[in-house]
């Protein structure tokens, strides 16, 4: 199987002091959908900017279809397409004109331009709005136009940085449906950043969990979920669990892992029914009073919690980006 992305030991330090990436290793098979899942500030965007040849890593090596991103930047740029997190179309011209400008930059032959543009406009369901100025588009339509600009050249690999950030659930779903149908037709490799668990879970073949500048775990969504144990018991508590007691619970044979939080405790166990009474005993004995207990099947949120030791707190950030996109739209 061909390797689309191959990264070894990537380190990036901004201005000689702010570390953004601390030794990233990963590889992506051609034709797969690969998600990098992590909270704001984890280093997702920096990694993508290195892979798309915008900035250079301080050490390490990254290859796209065998081409080195620092040495063969020009060749890499011919294979890839990229949609940044921020808006990347001109709002004071029409959707069609945006595509035309990009088609010309990519040297699409003049006789093929119209056909290709009409094609992607149709794929992204924008054909009825091709002549409308982009500033009159909705957020979801702008996103689809941006993706259309990226699909225009039929790239070998598509890089998407938070492709649906700031969109409502319905618009998000449409964006992904269109992307997936394009992928099916053209077999493009997709590499995307997200902080949406559900997107990573539903649409990707493989997920890399990134936190604090490092990849903490890579696997298929199923394998990741399996790795945290069969069930999760979540305790809401009157006070925080002392470290010693958390350790004691973790050392129990029937417990896979324990993650303490603020006035809460998550226990990953194969069989919650057996583990629960015993854990409650331990907590009671140590005067940690339980307010609430819930048991559930693990989802990616829990996987993230286990490997990153924290939850993805992203609400603020989304509002932020939405406001910025609105402001730029004018």
């Amino acid at each position, binding site marked *: 199987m061909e390797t689309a992305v191959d990264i070894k030991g990537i380190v990036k330090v901004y201005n000689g002091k702010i570390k953004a990436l601390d030794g990233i290793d990963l590889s992506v098979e051609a034709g797969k959908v690969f998600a990098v899942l992590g909270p704001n500030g984890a280093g997702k965007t920096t990694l993508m900017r290195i892979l798309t040849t915008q900035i250079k890593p301080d050490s390490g090596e990254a290859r796209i279809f065998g081409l080195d991103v620092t040495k063969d930047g020009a060749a890499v740029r011919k294979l890839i397409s990229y949609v*940044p997190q*921020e808006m990347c179309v001109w709002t004071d011209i029409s959707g069609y004109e945006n595509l035309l400008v990009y088609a*010309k*930059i990519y*040297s699409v032959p003049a006789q093929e331009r119209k056909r290709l543009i009409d094609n992607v406009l149709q794929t992204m369901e924008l054909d009825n709005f091709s002549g409308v100025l982009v500033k009159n588009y909705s957020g979801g339509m702008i996103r689809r136009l941006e993706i259309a600009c990226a699909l225009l050249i039929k790239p070998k690999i598509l890089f998407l940085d938070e492709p649906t950030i700031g969109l409502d659930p319905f618009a998000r779903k449409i964006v992904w449906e269109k992307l997936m149908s394009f992928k099916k037709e053209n077999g493009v490799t997709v590499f995307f950043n997200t902080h949406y668990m559900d997107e990573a879970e539903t649409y990707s073949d493989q997920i890399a969990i990134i936190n604090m500048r490092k990849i903490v775990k890579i696997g298929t969504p199923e394998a990741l979920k399996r790795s945290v144990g069969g069930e999760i018991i979540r305790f809401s508590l009157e006070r925080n669990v002392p470290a010693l007691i958390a350790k004691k619970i973790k050392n129990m044979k029937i417990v896979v892992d324990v993650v303490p939080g603020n006035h809460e405790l998550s226990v990953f166990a194969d069989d919650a029914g057996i583990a629960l009474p015993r854990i409650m005993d331990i907590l009671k004995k140590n005067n940690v009073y339980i307010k609430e207990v819930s048991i559930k099947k693990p989802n990616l949120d829990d996987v993230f919690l286990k490997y990153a030791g924290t939850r993805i707190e992203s609400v603020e950030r989304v509002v932020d980006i939405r406001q910025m996109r609105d402001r730029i739209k004018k």
Partner: protein
Amino acid sequence: MITMMESLKNIMVMIELEARRLRHDRTELYVRAVQPVLWLVIYGSVMSAVKLIPTGGIPYIAYITPGVLLQSTAFVSIFFGLTIVWEKESGILKKLLVTPASRPSIVVGRSMAAGVRSILQAVIIIPIALLIGVVFLPNPLYFVLAFAIIFIISAGFAAISIFIASFLKTRERFMGIGQAITFPLFFASNALYPIELMPPLIKEFALMNPMSYAVDAIRGLMISGNISNLPFDIAAIVIFVSVMLAIASVSFKRIIE
């Protein structure tokens, strides 16, 4: 050779993009034409009544028309850097960097796009100048050359603004600096009065000011017909524009990071 053609094509695309934007919305062009027209109509008429400034026999309003044209060019071009700041805030620059277009061709293309605006600005101002009695030399070749100079020097001014944009990361800061640059360019040049009238220090500055050479060239081509300095003027302008484009290309890296 292929990269040359590629770059040239990318520059043309950037120019086309600007033309398309202006086709959809020209209000800014009209608004920006108000100030130069006021210079001609008010300042020009008052000063020509005063008859203080030696113009070598040219009516004063005609004398300052090239300068006012170029001031508006400089203004438009320098504030064009604002577009780059905007593009930096949005993802457009990031996206452009990932296309096969080379970085210098992006910088030069964006700069040249300012020329489109400047030319259209001149197209609005010149008929108004005609209306208030400015007599232009009826030489089409001279006119074409004058427009070419306006176009080229716009790229130089726009490159200055890209250079500044690489330091200033927000629009608000840019506004103030933009003013601070266009003013000395205009007043410490031969746009409104001959350089010989200036006190020594300002004179030195005016002689290094690219605006002075552009004004001299355009005044010769459009008004006085005295083009004895033209080759020298053009050389000065070409050097200025090339140097600024080179500096802008280098500083562009700071905008990206």
